[in-house]
């Protein structure tokens, strides 16, 4: 391998014309990732982007690394194969709410359960964009779409809760246009050994425009975003005077205001990203009753699947010695005919 030279954003961009709709949240994510790559100190040749099908899944074509735009929902399985074949590769998986949680829900479940060392970026725009606007498994109840002209009647799935339920060891949430928040988050996801799951609230300006305005609009964001950081109290609001207090009797959060009714910072729950129950409670918070949690909700590393696989392989190889197929063929019961 060549000595690491200083790469720039441009080195990670391809000559392909980006074909997302004007105003699509994907542009911001792409820029953020392209800018992050040189900072991570990774090489282009060891980086692989794997995706499924959908708007988000065009992502690999715009990254000047190795890339595989696969089939609908199956990117987790293909990425698992890539890692099994070459654990040295740094593999990113780009998917969406339809790709990753509907047709590919089973694979997402298992890639998280197995803890395959990947960075999984799930662009959640709560709609099927590429097929022209049908509701998705994360669409809010009552979503009107070509396939649900009278409003959807099935309950939406919460991606982070799903990931936690599947046994993911790193679960985070961020917002497409908030590069400042997303960049360090992706860096941490990259550092994490094992599957890192990042839900990105992503705006679809054509079929679901403004669905996340409540957390993006500067006027409301302070009240609707709860930026969680390990070891820090769960505070929010324009002057960070609001916080979450645990009601131990109902095992639920309640929004309280510092200085009101004798509430002090000591009453506010402190974020512990190694706590799964806390992560689950945070993942579930929804407006308008609560602010929505962004940041690393959960991080508790475990040995990654592929590491375990290779550890087992080397144990067997150490025990069995040099493999000789001709010897194996002659093992067991044989007889000579003269």
């Amino acid at each position: 391998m060549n000595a690491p030279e200083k790469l720039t954003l441009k080195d990670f961009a391809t000559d392909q014309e980006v074909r997302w709709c004007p105003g699509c949240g994907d542009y911001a994510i792409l820029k953020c990732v392209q800018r992050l790559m040189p900072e991570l100190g990774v090489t282009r040749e060891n980086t692989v982007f794997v995706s499924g099908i959908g708007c988000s899944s065009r992502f690999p074509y715009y990254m000047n690394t190795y890339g595989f735009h696969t089939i609908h929902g199956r990117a987790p399985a293909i990425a698992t194969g890539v890692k099994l074949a070459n654990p040295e590769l740094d593999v990113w998986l780009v998917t969406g709410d339809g790709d990753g949680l509907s047709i590919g829900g089973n694979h997402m479940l298992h890639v998280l359960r197995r803890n395959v060392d990947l960075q999984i970026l799930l662009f959640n725009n709560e709609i099927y964009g590429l097929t022209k606007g049908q509701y998705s498994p994360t669409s809010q109840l009552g979503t009107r779409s070509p396939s649900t002209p009278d409003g959807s009647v099935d309950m939406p799935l919460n991606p982070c809760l799903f990931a936690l339920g599947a046994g993911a060891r790193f679960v985070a949430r961020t917002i497409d246009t908030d590069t400042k928040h997303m960049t360090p988050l992706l860096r941490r996801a990259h550092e994490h050994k094992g599957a890192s799951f990042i839900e990105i609230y992503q705006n679809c300006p054509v079929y679901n425009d403004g669905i996340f305005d409540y957390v993006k609009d500067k006027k409301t964001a302070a009240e609707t975003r709860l930026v969680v950081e390990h070891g820090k109290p769960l505070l929010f609001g324009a002057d960070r005077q609001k916080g979450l207090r645990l009601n131990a009797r109902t095992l639920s959060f309640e929004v309280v205001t510092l200085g009101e009714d004798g509430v002090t910072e000591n009453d506010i729950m402190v974020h512990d990203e190694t706590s799964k129950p806390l992560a689950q409670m945070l993942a579930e918070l929804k407006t308008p009753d609560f602010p929505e949690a962004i940041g690393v909700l959960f991080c508790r590393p475990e040995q990654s699947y592929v590491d375990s696989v290779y550890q087992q392989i080397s144990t067997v190889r150490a025990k069995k010695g040099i493999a000789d197929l001709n010897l194996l063929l002659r093992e067991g019961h044989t007889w000579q005919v003269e």
Partner: protein
Amino acid sequence: MSVVESIPVREDPTPDSSSAVVRFAGDSGDGMQLTGSNFTQATALYGNDLATFPDFPAEIRAPAGATFGVSAFQIYFGADEVTTAGDDLDVLVVMNPAALITNLKDLLEGGLIIADKDAFTNRNLARAGYTTNPLEDGSLDAYRLISIDITKQVIAAVEPFGLSHKFAVRCKNMWTLGLVMWLFDRDKQTTIDNLNAKFAVKQDIAKANIAALNAGNSFAETAELPSGIEVYKIQKADVLPGLYKNTTGSEALALGLIAGGQLANIPLTFASYPITPASSLLHTLSAHKEFDIVTFQAEDEIAAVCAAIGASFAGSLGITSSSGPGISLKGEAISLACATELPLVVVNTQRGGPSTGLPTKTEQSDLNQALYGRHADTTLPVLASSTPGDCFDVAIEAVRLATKFSTPVLLLSDGYLANASGPWIIPDLNDYQDFHVVHETNPEGFSPANRDEDTLARVWAKPGTPGLEHRIGGIEKDFETGDISYDSDNHQKMTAIRKAKIDGIDRFIPEQAVSLGSTQGELVVVGWGSTFGAIHQAVKQCRASGSDVSHIHIRYLLPFPANLGELLKGYEKVLVTEMNTGQLVEVLKSKFLIEMQQLNKTSGQPFKIREIVDAIHSLLGGD
């Protein structure tokens, strides 16, 4: 085809024969498969050629005494070349009434029945559908019957070891094996060794089983058998010299894949999902981590093929395996491998279908699926193995074609091949020509769309290689640059070159040979896959009695060998024999525009030699 209703009469009822067919049948928990495999080993040592056919139910432990729970193991052995598990039985061993009622139709008149009369209780008789006891009511008069109180004998024999009744009775199969071994003059020693090895930590169980084996053997020897029952002297076979072992098709296929990986000098990633009768491939390969192979039990069939494709993209050879229903699920991903032109080996161990069908029985009904069972124009090489040992060579060939042409390859095996065993001259890997894979490393003039001029294979550049970063995917790609292209002329060109690449493989495979007979004549029987043995024997028999008939067995089903059409035109009549409703025959007719006859069977059982002989006779007239 028609089922033969009457019981064929054994032409030579004396035990001094050149061959014999023995079937052990009992409850699925009676240990019949183990009994059969031990008898097989002793028979191979004795010097007979042989073939076996394990036939077991889909239920793991069906209720005791149920007809649907009968598990059987058949072995055909003899002095002559043996290529099938045999048609009609000379000896039928039954551990209960259900085993008798379900297997009696295959026994020759005058054939020998060995039955455990202790198991013919009123309850078991009723469960099997008997109103009277066939061992006593004279209904078996056309056969020779040895009815022994095996259960009682076994309990007495293993009494010194203090086993519980349950464990004592489980030694019944070894007692019976001991008796049958005496009947055929087999040596018990390998079985004794096997038992000692199997129950190394349970010495009392090993000793009890050995005692049962010995007791059954002495029971026969000490003339406690009815008069007229003597030792069968089956002459030894005159087989090719060499070092032999018994192998099942699935074992040989697994080792063939490892061999292919070594000859290609490339790591393998084998990804699969459990399905009968294909799982044994996953089991075998998972137990050989010392070779350059990673195995992966995926969450489903789709994930399995996708992981294999991911591995191929990363520079290993991805292999996936399943049976028909699972291959259906893999279809979309196989098309992705066709579109991206990545190497991939897909093994289909076929079973009776459609749907769940007959999971433990055999059929060749997935040929159309292999040839056409995907969306769009996705032609890919299709190979079929014909005998357990041939699975080794075909697996190597699948790896060769996949890597040489950067394409998915479909390898067809079936339930019969996977489970049946036969003696196999152990191959020497040094005798095989290697075909090392060379991944692209040179950035000069690199495009992911580059092709080998001769084979038309797309370049294989693996992640981790500096300067060759590129993107592939399911969207149509530009012929020159490999970038996304929706251009209509480009799609036409890409479709054409993908097809031309596969069609052109016929320049890189051997010409079709005639397995037996001559390159022209009155009739040729054409087959593919596991029907090899039955067709071979049938053609051999008919030729011996003067018929002008030959046998062609096709390994390369897509593309066909270049000479196949001309070869077939050299015969007046063509009979295509398959375990389906006529899939290959339709392909051959439409491709070569030749009139053809067909012989088909879809009972879940392999062809009998006689069925093919009858078809040959009826086509050639006379006889």
